[in-house]
């Protein structure tokens, strides 16, 4: 689709296209634009490391050149595989050339337009080229990259080539009309969240104030390479179907259905044909009309399918989330749940993971207090914007927090980390910053939150009990000294200190932590009143 959109704009310049679709591409607002820039570059780095089976070390530096103009220098450095010299242009200097398009695979890069978009933005706002250093297979290439905005062809100016053992990519762009801000929409928060969802990555951030923030690696396990999966008939929309059909090289509609989708057996295909006797299943797939596709999609919903396989979904993992939460939020209590795969719209598998951190650095810091914070992820990519219209937010809001010992979620030192993994994330809009409120999805997220909230409640109860225990000890201990004094005098006993010490010990033993709390202990006044 997007490629079609692009071709429609061929007669205009790529720049025109970019400007017209800036909003859609994430370049709306100064703070958000900077976050989008960093996001595109970091995503690239993470994907490159994953492809090369490397534990990513990423350094992001944002420095101010002219605050009034909103002019900043963005510098990013990774230890990925690097880019071979001949592909540098295509990867970083050509819009919409990414390999990610039309692969039905769980990926971060479902959002945005990739690093070339940043190159374009830099060029359009400052007129400058970006500087790239790529270390790939023993060779280090330093170059400048521009986009020919008339032809959408990259222009690469090689400055230096030298042999080097270093691998990775350094990308530096000057940009204008952006703003650095430590708000929840800003770069810092974005990187913190990215680190939370990517515990195998080490991310260092040097902010414009010269401060260095390090989000260390929490686990040494590289996530598995996502493998493409065939779409399930129930997870497909009319436009998806048209899209697949038009790009298909299958000779007939029949073979297209059997080979492109999962769970479409010959038996099911016959069933489909029976529903649609007027459609010629021997025609070429690219001949499929919108009207026909529409009818096929509605028939898909009437047929009883075997549930889709959840093979292509890669959640972050309970252990990994837990480690990164402890690493980054240093909470007093943390619980993570990874739910079993579920499906929405009757056919799209997804997995929900929820991590809850309580106390410590959990919660959004506002002044001296901490407020309940919800950190949303889709396939590990943080969703910073449009929280109000997001199904994840709906699920959080539907929880009766009082049941879990939290008077008001907004005032509680809690961070909820919610990651939805799927090969097809139901974004609400082109901005891809919110999930649509699919009932199955919201219910599943809600159930996952309740799982961890129950555990938290047990923890809070334990804390209350501990506080009560301490209060009990204190309420007895305060009388020990007076009693020892009177008792020593009363008994003509010289070792008052000994009584004192022994009594303190007795109190501590009775209310010690190890002793099972006895709720039946008679604390009541045992003297009835006449």
């Amino acid at each position, binding site marked *: 689709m997007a490629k079609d959109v692009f071709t429609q704009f061929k007669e205009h310049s790529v720049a025109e296209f970019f400007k017209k679709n800036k909003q859609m591409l994430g370049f709306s607002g100064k703070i958000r634009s900077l976050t989008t820039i960093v996001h595109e570059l970091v995503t690239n780095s993470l994907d490159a490391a994953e492809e090369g089976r490397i534990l990513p070390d990423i350094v992001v530096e944002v420095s101010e050149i002219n605050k009034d103009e909103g002019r900043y220098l963005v510098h990013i450095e990774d230890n990925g595989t690097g880019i071979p010299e001949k592909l540098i242009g295509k990867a970083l200097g050509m819009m919409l050339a990414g390999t990610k398009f039309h692969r039905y695979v769980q990926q971060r890069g479902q959002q945005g337009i990739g690093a070339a978009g940043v190159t374009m933005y830099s060029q359009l706002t400052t007129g400058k080229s970006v500087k790239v250093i790529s270390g790939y297979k023993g060779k280090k290439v330093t170059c400048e990259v521009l986009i020919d905005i008339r032809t959408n062809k990259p222009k690469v100016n090689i400055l230096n080539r030298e042999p080097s053992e270093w691998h990775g990519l350094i990308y530096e762009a000057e940009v204008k009309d952006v703003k650095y801000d430590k708000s929840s929409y800003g770069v810092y928060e974005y990187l913190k969240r990215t680190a939370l969802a990517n515990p195998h990555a080490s991310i260092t951030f040097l902010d414009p104030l010269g401060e260095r923030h390090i989000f260390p690696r929490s686990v040494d396990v590289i996530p598995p390479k996502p493998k493409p999966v065939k779409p399930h008939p129930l997870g497909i929309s009319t436009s998806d179907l048209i899209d697949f059909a038009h790009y298909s090289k299958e000779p007939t509609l029949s073979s297209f259905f059997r080979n492109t989708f999962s769970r479409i057996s010959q038996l099911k295909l016959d069933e489909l044909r029976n529903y649609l006797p007027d459609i010629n299943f021997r025609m070429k797939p690219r001949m499929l009309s919108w009207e026909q596709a529409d009818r096929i999609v509605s028939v898909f919903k009437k047929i009883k399918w075997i549930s889709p396989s959840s093979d292509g979904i890669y959640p972050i993992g309970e252990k990994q989330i837990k480690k990164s939460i402890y690493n980054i939020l240093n909470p007093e209590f943390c619980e993570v749940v990874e739910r079993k795969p579920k499906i929405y719209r009757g056919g799209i598998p997804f997995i929900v993971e929820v991590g809850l951190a309580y106390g410590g650095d959990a919660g959004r810091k506002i002044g001296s207090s901490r407020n309940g914070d919800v950190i949303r992820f889709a396939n590990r990519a943080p969703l910073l914007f449009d929280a109000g219209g997001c199904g994840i937010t709906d699920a959080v809001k539907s929880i009766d927090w009082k049941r879990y010992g939290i008077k008001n979620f907004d005032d509680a030192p809690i961070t909820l980390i919610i990651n939805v993994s799927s090969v097809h994330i139901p974004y609400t809009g082109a901005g891809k910053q919110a999930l649509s409120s699919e009932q199955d999805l919201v219910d599943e997220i809600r159930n996952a939150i309740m799982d961890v909230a129950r555990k938290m409640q047990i923890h809070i109860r334990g804390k209350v009990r501990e506080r009560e225990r301490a209060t009990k000890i204190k309420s007895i201990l305060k009388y020990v000294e007076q009693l020892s004094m*009177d008792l020593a005098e009363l008994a003509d006993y010289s070792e008052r200190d000994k009584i004192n010490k022994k009594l303190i010990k007795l109190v501590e033993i009775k209310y010690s932590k190890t002793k099972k709390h006895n709720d039946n202990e008679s604390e009541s006044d045992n003297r009835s009143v006449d």
Partner: protein
Amino acid sequence: MSDVVKKLTNLGKSMVKEINNNSSPTFTTKLRSRSNINYDESIGVLRLGDKREERTFINVSQARRFMQTIAVANKCKKFLNENSHTSIRGLYYQLKFSLGANLDEELFSEQGESNPLIEDLELALDVKREDLNLSTARKGVVAGPMVLKDKFAGEKVEIDLTKQGRSGWMIPSDVDNGMEIDSINAEWVLVVEKDAIWQRLNEDKFWKKEDCILISPQGQASRGARRLLRKLADKGLPIIVFTDCDAWGWYIYWTIKTGSMNLAYLGLDIAVPESKFIGVTMQDIKDYDFLDKLTITAKPIDIKKAQDMLSYPWINMHKEWVKELKTVIKTKKKIEQDALQGPRLSFISDYLRDKKENERFLP
């Protein structure tokens, strides 16, 4: 070392022993609740049963009271060793004054906290508060042919109760320690509820004419007054009680006779089951015509008290009293002692003489 000091010291020693054996110190006393108060029919006295309560220091709800109990015990030991006396209110202030070791609250915040602890100690040690050099408020007045010897503040005095003039001799809180009856020249004892009537009879020289000891507890009888009555009964004198004709007045009689529930732990020491009730009764309204005009209306609390008394088995067992109480509840009337002065001021004397000679008593 006196016996009481020894008892106090031993109480402390047993607790120190418990502590040294690594257990929480405990304090055992008799349960003073209604459930542990029994009427001993054989001697006609309210007594405390055998139910005990053990308190332990290492218990959130008992720690403060435990500490306070020992503070009271220690303070009393000091009084005994110094041979000084004080009232229970004085004790309270003594304890309140000591701020407590490393304590950010008052040792005692009100006297209501220390009073029951004194009773606990009396029970635990089997002593009376007077033995702990604690006194209650003086109340009660006496006149009549009796001589007392009083050792007090290093002095010995003889007190002739015929020579106390219009005010009479005031009953101290402790009539046991340092106080003894030297001689009695009376045949019986008359207890008069109201001080005003006592004054009337004293002016009439009733005690001289009738050879009696004339006592007014001035309302509900104090420990000292009840203890004195017990001692007089022990000397073989009949105790005759004269109160208003209403449930509260009658209850003053019953407190003297069987002891009160509050002080049931003192049992026979403070009760006079031999005592008899002379009046005023509801029956008197029939027997003395003029009284019918002098009745006043009983208040709801009088009726309530009458109903309560009907429920006490030691009162309910006497049919005469059941009749009297039921009459009060039914007619809602009462008569004050003072009403007997209706015909003439000296009629009270005539009334008492008349009833006594005809032995028209209630049990």
